[in-house]
């Protein structure tokens, strides 16, 4: 059950950064092509360069003090800072939720690993020589969140979720509850994919995934701004209308869980699937596609432009939906976004693009 009988929650701003580009519109651009990895040319992925952080939002020293995945996340957070600032809210009423996978590593130890290879007898000495003192903090997700909080003046509720597949769902839903329950007026929701490094493949291969699929990863980040009041520009507003989540370690139960999750997401608005105009889901996920096989629906996905963005996948799709639904041609309709992690998590988000009443 999700209790949506409290305050409405709207999407007010969004930003992305991935192989397609740094604008949501780039996800409608020319198809991006996965490239061979530097450390394993037999594998393809959608890698990106570490972005420069906006100097008007972040102290420039932070650029050197975060991992690339943290930098991507900060970049996206900085892009929604103006929209947040325009709300003129007390900082205690601004929540911050993050979906951040664990930092590889410690990743600087890849230098240490190489150094150990050169001097295997001095293993720990090489490790310590190549691990900077601040690395303890760089390894903690809360440090990246602290940079966001400080720069965007978030003093409200805060939470960080680190599991790869469902962290984005958890962060979004938690942010929703903080606003709906009156603990915040706005919520910054940030997310990042992991860095593409040998560690990512080692981690993913260590366990047999419930939802195995092609390992075509991408690097990226996304941030959205949720608010208790609808945006004042434009006639339309995108509202969080429902959500659901579930889990099954057993592939046999997967469809049942998925249907239950979809039903949860649609239930508040008393909808059925045919009422939803747009469905967003990974078209490479056969189990996901099987849910809609008989409906004949067109399923939308930007994954072919970005690769699997892990914790940032859902928010990237949310950001794109926000962008598309603000266009002049947008009509009132529902969008259902579905997320299915390799570990077996299911998440569903229902967004309602609706016409705001005059003077609302």
């Amino acid at each position, binding site marked *: 059950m999700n209790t949506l009988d409290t305050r409405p929650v709207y999407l007010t701003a969004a930003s992305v950064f991935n192989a397609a580009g740094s604008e949501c519109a780039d996800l409608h651009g020319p198809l991006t092509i996965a490239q061979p990895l530097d450390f394993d040319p037999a594998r393809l992925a959608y890698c990106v360069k570490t972005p420069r952080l906006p100097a008007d939002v972040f102290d420039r020293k932070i650029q050197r003090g975060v991992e690339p995945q943290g930098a991507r996340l900060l970049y996206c957070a900085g892009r929604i800072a103006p929209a947040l600032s325009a709300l003129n809210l007390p900082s205690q009423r601004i929540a911050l939720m993050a979906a951040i996978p664990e930092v590889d590593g*410690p990743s600087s130890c890849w230098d240490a690993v190489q150094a*150990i290879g050169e001097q295997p007898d001095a293993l*720990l000495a090489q490790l310590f020589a190549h691990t*900077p003192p601040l690395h303890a903090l760089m390894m903690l997700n809360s440090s990246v969140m*602290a940079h966001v909080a400080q720069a965007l003046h978030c003093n409200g509720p805060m939470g960080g979720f680190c599991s790869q597949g469902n962290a984005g769902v958890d962060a979004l839903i938690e942010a929703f509850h903080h606003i709906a329950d009156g603990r915040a007026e706005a919520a910054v929701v940030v997310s990042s994919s992991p860095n593409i490094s040998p560690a990512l493949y080692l*981690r993913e291969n*260590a366990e047999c995934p419930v939802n195995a699929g092609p390992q075509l990863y991408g690097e990226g980040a996304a941030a959205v701004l949720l608010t208790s009041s609808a945006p004042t520009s434009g006639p339309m507003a995108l509202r969080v209308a429902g959500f659901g989540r579930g889990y099954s370690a057993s592939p046999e139960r997967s469809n049942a869980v998925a249907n239950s999750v979809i039903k949860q997401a649609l239930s508040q608005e008393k909808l059925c699937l045919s009422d939803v105009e747009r469905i967003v889901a990974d078209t490479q996920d056969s189990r996901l596609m099987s849910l809609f096989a008989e409906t004949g629906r067109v399923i939308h996905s930007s994954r072919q432009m970005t690769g699997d963005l892990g914790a940032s996948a859902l928010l990237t799709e949310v950001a794109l939906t926000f962008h598309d639904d603000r266009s002049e041609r947008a009509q009132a309709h529902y969008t259902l976004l579905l997320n299915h992690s390799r570990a077996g998590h299911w998440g569903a988000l229902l967004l309602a693009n609706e016409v705001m009443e005059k003077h609302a």
Partner: protein
Amino acid sequence: MRLREVYVTGYGLVAPMALDAAMLFSRISQKRSCIREHPVFAELGFANTAAGYIDHHQWQEMTAEVQSDALPRQSVLAEYVARQALQNAGLTPSAFARVASGLFLGSNKYCVSQDLQQASRYMDEAGSVDLDLYLQNHEPVGGAFSRRVDQQTLHLARFLGIRDHISTHSDACAAGTMAIGSAYRAIERGEIDLAICGAVELMAHELSYYSFDGLGAVCQRSDFAADQQSRPFMPDRCGFVLSEGSALIVLESRPHAERRKATPIGRILGYANYCEAQKITSSSRDGSKYAECMAAAIENAGLTSRAVEHVNTHGTSTQANDRSEALALKQVFGDAVSNVTFTANKSAIGHSLAGSGAIEAVLSLISLHSGVLLPTLNYDPDKAEFPELNFLSEPLHQPINVVLSNSFGFGGVNSSLILGRA
């Protein structure tokens, strides 16, 4: 608006030198520290070798119970503690598959130095890790860097048959408390009826030590004996002592607990969590942000500060945290501070990061249930920096009804729980 009452019906815990909660509680009541010299730190010649660590004997016991040599240690620990919690609650794993249920776990990092030794075996001539060579090997799950931080969450989810809500919190030292808080809110809202929540953290190894020592965060005074180094709120406190451990709590909605005639051990009455937005390592020097968090938790419980009788402090034994927390406590309780008793469990256990909030919540629940308040080790009231705070230096038999438990994490993640008697 309060929706549903949330009961605590069971718990499990493993900490350094303690394989269950009763053992730990008894040990601290007898003022016996769980901190000692870490053999690996000594072997490596670290300047300071004090740590709270789960030893070989404990791992043997846990591995025998869980009956798996292939599981990574975080998962062994998580399952062992979960089994304790279920037994304590009178539940079997199948209970979680029958109702709307959730698993909320706090954990920050999987990081073990053995990973590097393994990775170094798969280097090519240039010293780079050869991924294909590594992946071709048939080693069991001991792969370097092949652990996910949420592995124990997934393992427990499978073990318990959780079907609705699974999340892994990574909020540094506050992760355990925040996992409990999230579970509490999910039940209170009516999303789920049953939850198991808490934290698993294994940080007492050389890599973490080196990392935190580089920050100047761990105790620098090797002239203090190991069991004296964690000395929260004392003027000569000198940094925290690295530790590890796990605690899990079973939460149920009141209707669910009553339907199965469960005996509640306690209640979660309130919770709050806020963001400092200061620098990543510091907190507000005047304690105001800590105070706001505590006050919000008390208000969430529908109480005033005068209802709080005992506080389980975050009390890390760092100069910065303890001072900020002391100032905050004085702000929250005002003139009534003399009516409140305080404890700092990390004086006995050390700082187990995510584990600490969950472990301290369990110890608080036992105090509520038993009417025994735990002493703070290494605390001398005559030399106290904050004499107005009534830290117990001896165990005290005194029934209490409401405990406030704090966890303030790196990155400015502040969280407070209000726990009540059943």
